[in-house]
């Protein structure tokens, strides 16, 4: 029962964060939302009995990707976007 509620909540959060990441005009918000998609997906992988995948997605998909994105954003920082 509890696991069904948790998986529905995770589904809603993942889809909402993905739509926000694609639709927003602020690049910082877009990158943070993409990180949230990976993070919530990796909690979901634990439900699917895949702890290895969950750890990889958390460390690489959410951690290192976000860091590289922010380095690039800092490099190309212009006047028209924040």
């Amino acid at each position, binding site marked *: 029962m509890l696991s069904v509620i948790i998986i529905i909540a995770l589904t809603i959060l993942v889809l909402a964060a993905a739509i926000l990441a694609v639709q927003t005009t602020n690049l910082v918000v877009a990158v943070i939302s993409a990180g949230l998609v990976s993070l919530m997906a990796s909690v*979901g992988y634990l439900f699917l009995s895949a702890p290895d*995948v969950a750890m*990889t997605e958390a460390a*690489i998909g959410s951690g290192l*990707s976000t860091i590289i994105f922010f380095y690039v954003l800092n*490099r190309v920082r212009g006047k028209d976007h924040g």
Partner: protein
Amino acid sequence: MDFGLVAVVVGFLLILIGIWGILTQKNIVKIVIGFSIFDTGLHAIMVGIGYLKGRTAPILDSAVSPADALTSIVDPVPQALVLTAIVIGLGVTALMLAYVVRLYDYRKSLDISSYEDLKW
């Protein structure tokens, strides 16, 4: 409720959102973000296919003995493939972002419509 089916459906929806982002956004960084969401959707589908209802992780310890591994663990092969795919996904993202930096140096713009050199 079958969690595997839920994961497959969520993965397909993430792929659709990612394609929408890639095809409609003008900013190059947003296109890369759309690609990374597409990637996450693919991983979710592959893990969902390997899931078997009511079974536990393929790690044998005090909770699961090697003797009854056959009846109590999920399929480990898709998980091993996804492990590879995530690392390669990071490499591809980093490569695309390096191109973004190079393009920005070249024309000081992130808008995809200002790169029309190869358009016919």
